[in-house]
């Protein structure tokens, strides 16, 4: 009797305890749950994209374009002084000469010394090539000055596959000519697209223009889009590269002698444009916006003034129809203070601000943010003004003026609040200025004014180093 009772207890205990299979099953489920949890929590850390390598510039070629006709000027080049942090190789070669001719070797000279060059002839161009240490910090400028016809400064830029100009014209009082130069050893084939207030101007003669090596070609916009007051011009190379410039003649009064200026080029249309600061002393200012897209652009205009950003009344939104050009009189929106315009648009646009003073004209085009020192050669005998604007945060830039021999003749540090623009006037003995961003994002330009007229050039970072693209071998 007692035995059977004991047996039942044992059986009861056995039923209460899970079997080995049950324990193993539970362990399996728990392990699976742990793996699922781990799988949902642990993921691969995205690999940081390789950054482009930076290598010293080894060769720089720039071309100074000659005014299409009737005016000559001068040209000068220098290897700008660089901050001590920039290691600069010694030596190098400097050559210059008319495009299409064999260049002449020149002594590279000491860093900081300005060397005069033969100015380009009307309808021609001069190519300047520097290699090795002479290429680092190389900047070349030319100017056109003619009595009663204004002053036109120009930075001699390297060839590019695409150029955009805004503010040209093909009318009686406003006439522009496109100058194209091929400084490369191979042929270049370009398409020129001209946009006016009524849309793009079609012309079979502007398509597939072949420039032989060393050739300079002038295209009068009157031949492409006659009777157009405001034009945007795009040069696009389907093969090779060119140096392009839009020589603009703009009469401030009907039938007056037109003022002259090289309209600054920008490489691509963009949704955000930072225009070079405007010359403070101007009679009239006109914003010209070109929309190369097939959609209407609603452009917001913001002024970076002396103390910060503001939107002038009436300029809240500028409508630019598709594939056309619109102008907007800035009137008193800017006044006499240091100012630069920032445009924002849902579609890519190009723009410039035309300023007139007396009988001359100057253009403030889109400029890039400086990522290193920039230099500008000043016009002898004209008052110069260095204008620098800041991005969305406070910024600081060092400005130094040098004589033609490279001696420092003045300097300042421009401290800018967010979205503000500041100006500095170097001494009259200054031959060129170097602007170095110290803090934050800055961009700027230099405007000059004298008896011959007004002009301005944008500040562009000097060629110091080159970003090599990230290149990876791929399978297919």
């Amino acid at each position, binding site marked *: 009797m007692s035995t059977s009772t004991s047996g039942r207890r044992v059986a009861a205990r056995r039923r209460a305890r899970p079997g080995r299979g049950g324990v193993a099953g539970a362990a399996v489920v728990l392990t699976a749950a742990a793996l699922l949890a781990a799988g949902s929590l642990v*993921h691969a850390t995205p690999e940081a994209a390789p950054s*482009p390598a930076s290598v010293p510039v080894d060769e720089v070629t720039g071309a100074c374009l000659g005014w299409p006709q009737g005016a000559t000027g001068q040209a000068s080049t220098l290897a700008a002084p660089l901050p001590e942090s920039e290691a600069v190789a010694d030596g190098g070669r400097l050559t210059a000469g008319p495009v299409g001719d064999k260049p002449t070797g020149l002594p590279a000279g000491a860093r900081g010394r300005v060397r005069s060059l033969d100015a380009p002839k009307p309808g021609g161009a001069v190519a300047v090539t520097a290699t090795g240490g002479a290429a680092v910090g190389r900047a070349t400028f030319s100017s056109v000055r003619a009595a009663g016809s204004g002053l036109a400064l120009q930075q001699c830029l390297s060839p590019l596959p695409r150029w955009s100009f805004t503010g040209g014209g093909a009318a009686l009082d406003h006439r522009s000519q496109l100058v194209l130069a091929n400084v490369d050893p191979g042929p270049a084939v370009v398409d020129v697209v001209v946009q006016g207030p009524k849309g793009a101007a079609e012309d079979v003669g502007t398509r597939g223009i072949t420039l032989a090596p060393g050739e300079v070609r002038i295209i009068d916009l009157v031949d492409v889009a006659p009777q157009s007051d405001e034009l945007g011009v795009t040069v696009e190379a389907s093969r090779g*590269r060119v140096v392009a410039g839009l020589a603009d003649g703009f009469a401030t009064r009907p039938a007056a002698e037109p003022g002259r200026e090289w309209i600054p080029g920008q490489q691509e249309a963009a949704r955000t444009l930072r225009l070079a600061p405007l010359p403070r002393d101007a009679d009239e200012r006109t914003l010209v916006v070109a929309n190369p897209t097939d959609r209407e652009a609603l452009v917001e205009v913001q002024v970076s003034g002396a103390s910060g950003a503001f939107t002038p009344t009436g300029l809240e939104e500028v409508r630019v129809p598709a594939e056309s050009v619109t102008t907007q009189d800035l009137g008193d929106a800017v006044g006499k203070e240091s100012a630069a315009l920032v445009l924002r648009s849902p579609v890519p646009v190009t723009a410039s601000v035309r300023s007139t003073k007396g009988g001359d004209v100057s253009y403030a085009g889109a400029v890039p943010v400086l990522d290193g020192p920039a230099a500008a050669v000043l016009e002898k005998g004209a008052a110069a003004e260095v204008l620098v604007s800041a991005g969305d945060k406070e910024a600081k830039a060092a400005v130094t003026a040098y004589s033609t021999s490279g001696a420092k003749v003045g300097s300042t540090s421009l401290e800018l609040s967010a979205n503000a623009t500041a100006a500095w006037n170097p001494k009259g003995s200054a031959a060129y200025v170097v602007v170095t961003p110290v803090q934050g994002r800055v961009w700027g330009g230099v405007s000059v004014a004298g008896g011959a007229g007004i002009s301005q050039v944008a500040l562009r970072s000097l060629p110091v180093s080159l970003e090599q693209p990230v290149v990876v071998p791929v399978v297919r």
Partner: protein
Amino acid sequence: VRVTALLVSHNGARWLPAVLEGLAAQTRRPDRVVAVDTGSSDASVDLLEARLAPGSVVAAPGRTTFPEAVDLGLGHVEPPPDDEDDWVWLLHDDSRPAPDALQRLLEVAEANRSVSILGPKHREWPSLRRLLEVGITMSGTGRRETGLERGEYDQGQHDRLREVLAVGSAGMLVRRGVLEELGGFDRRLPMFGNDLDLGWRAARAGHRTMVVPDAVVFHVEAASRGIRRTPVVGNHHRNERRSALYTLLVNCSLAALPFLMVRLFFGSLLRSLGFLLVRAPKESFDELAALAAAYLRPDRILAGRAARRRTSKVPPRDVRHLLAPFWLPYRHGLDFVSDIATAVVLQASDASAARRSSRAAAAETGPEAEEAQSLPADTGLLARLLSSPTAGLFALLVLLALVGARGLVGSGLLSGGALLPAPASASSWWRLHLESWHDVGVGSASPAAPYLLPLALAGTLLLGKAWLVIDLLFLFCVPLAAIGAFRFLRTVVGRGWPALWGAAAYALFPVLAGAVAQGRLGTVVAAVVLPWVANAALFLTPLQPADRRWRAAWRTALLLGLLAAFAPVAWALAAVLAVAAFAAGLALAPAMWRQPRTWGPLAVAVGVVPVLLLPWSLQRLGGSPTSWFAEAGLPAGDLVADLGVWQLLGGRPTSVDLGAAPAWLSVGIAVAAAAALLRRGTRTAVIVAWAGVLVGLAAAVLLDARGEWAGFPLLLAAGAAVTAVAIAGTGIGAQLSGRSFGWRQPVGLLVLAAALLAPVVGALWWVVTGVPGPLDRGPATRVPAYMTDAALADPVDGILVVRSEDGGLGYSLLRGAGTRLGEDTVGAGGAAQNDLTALVAELASAPTAGEVAQLSTYGVRFVYLSPPADREVAGKLDSVSGLRPASALRPGSRAWELESEPSREALAERQSSYRPPLLLLQGLALVAALVLAAPSRRVRR
């Protein structure tokens, strides 16, 4: 006439009484009987001494050969008087003469005085009716030719007294003088072929040999049939073959010797290969060993020929008519092939008949419906499809595959995602696998990935059409995977609905997981192969017979090697599972699992794989272990998504927008797999299946953490989960209905419904969506044809293709019509590649004429910018000397041709000294594994 019967015996006690009776019953008794016993350990000596006259039994050592025994016996008989006609009648202890055998032989000897050797007709003992020999000769391959069909009954059809090359030594009546003149039997032929040799030598000495069909000897052929093992027999097949080679080489004419040596050498290799093909590895090895034994001792051949020269009196041509005709070996070869084909057909026919009879038996268990009676007989495919659920399922899957792949049909090659286009021919894969140096990119000496070998084999079987291999795999991977899965599940759970459901649920993995859509060749092939690996591994358990386990081990190794060739991580996971199995075995049955015979097959199944994957595995074993994670095909990291809980549960290595089906479609299987653990009766098997799930999940989590494609681990987990469900689902209906109603029934039904619906909704998704991924059909490359033509004509005329990549540039150096499947495995890497990368970066930023010239040293003739060509880069390349513009028809593309000639040094071949031996080792390992995996075959005479 004096006749001495000479009986040679060795452990023949089981036949001796009958033999002695036969001797005693002779109508013409021999004048003397002498027996030579070669060390019998049974009652042979006693039997002989009891029946023969005293002093007639000669005892010899155990290793005495037949020629030595004959010599010994003759020495025991005093020489005859000169005028007496003395004959020796040779008998074996397993050969019983018919009562009138000696009389018939002597009658013919009397009638034909020129005949020196006579032989009886041999009939099989104990059947007594089948013919064994009626005279013998030899073919050019060394085969002993009897002129009889195998198992031919004696109906007097060969009863023709005729001259032959030789007669068998059992029952041979030979003049003693001739025997002594020839030096007796050749002592270098201890057991086999000595009778043939003697006859051949006698013929060359001018003696005649006749077969006397009226004289009959019944012969067991105990030594030849392997019934009796003697020290002299040794390795039967090897010694027999060695004797045949020796006989041929020492007796043939001098003029025929070189030809015969070459023929026998290659013939033996061919025979060896043939034995391998019919899964007789031992015979195959014996063939080679016999060849080596014969050919490595030329001194024996020379000595044998010298001895025969001394006794030869007639030229070889006078004997030729006694040899087998030259065409006989070829007819045997044809017969062999026909036999195999017939056997295969008969086997298939038998299997079909068995299936039908089994179905008929099943149908006869109940009354036949009236409608069924009016149906036509099951004679065709349609009827089978309609009547067989298995055939119906596979037909349905094929149909679904055709519908699902509708977007991939057309001209061009399948490519996209992780898949490169197939090469023009399977020979490209062979070259990549076999060559030490590859004209790919900057040139490479890297070993090709191991999956090229099976692809090359498959491509060769498909008449060299490499594209067809890829098309079949990607378009029909679901039905192909279903076949293996069904086979595996049928072994595990038996034929029934769970196996069918499991096959369908598993086979859909490649399409639902996005492996097909992303061109993941590794996962697709793994889905097809994995069930076969699992099926082979089922027979590794200690419950199986040892022979079967070892064969399963080699079969598993082969299949695992195939799987690991496409998904190397499979080998690592198999190793983990093997270690787990070993640990579990040690815990549960330590005594058994400590024995090598228990764990040996498991170790072989996993350990042999790296050898099968040579030479690639050697390189990878020396490198990073993580290199085993990558599957066949391109990594395509941009197509890999972070895995979440749902994706792990549903078995989705990527997200819906990258080609996978929504994970919830398959979650029912995961739930059912978890529920399977609740069923007690099948819990142990289900837990074993769950081990696969856990290992797969762990590997998937690991790969996910590295941002790599986790296709195979999730395939393993899904397959194991399906297996767990199928195991627990066997008889689940009866299980649920047999219990009293409670919560288990509705919950069980819900789980069952979720599991059953998973493959159904998955198939619906497949049909509706098709293949929603980067996999597409199109041209292999969009580079201008004139460039690829030039590169195909001369690989040095390479094409540098540059295209915009995320924030940078990507480039490839083509040596033909685009990079093809397999070339990626030997391509990038090394210092040369890094130098070229730096050069391309310089060309893209600030090119100089010097850098363009440098490009030609890499074997580049063209530079091609794929659309949309980067304007900056295009402009810079336009501006540099040394490049001239070339034609590029595609909008947005640009092309240049180098003005300088590409350097021939760019692809100068660099041989790898270790590659050929490694490939040889791999080949031998594959052959060995194939042979050892096959069922062993015993060759019967």
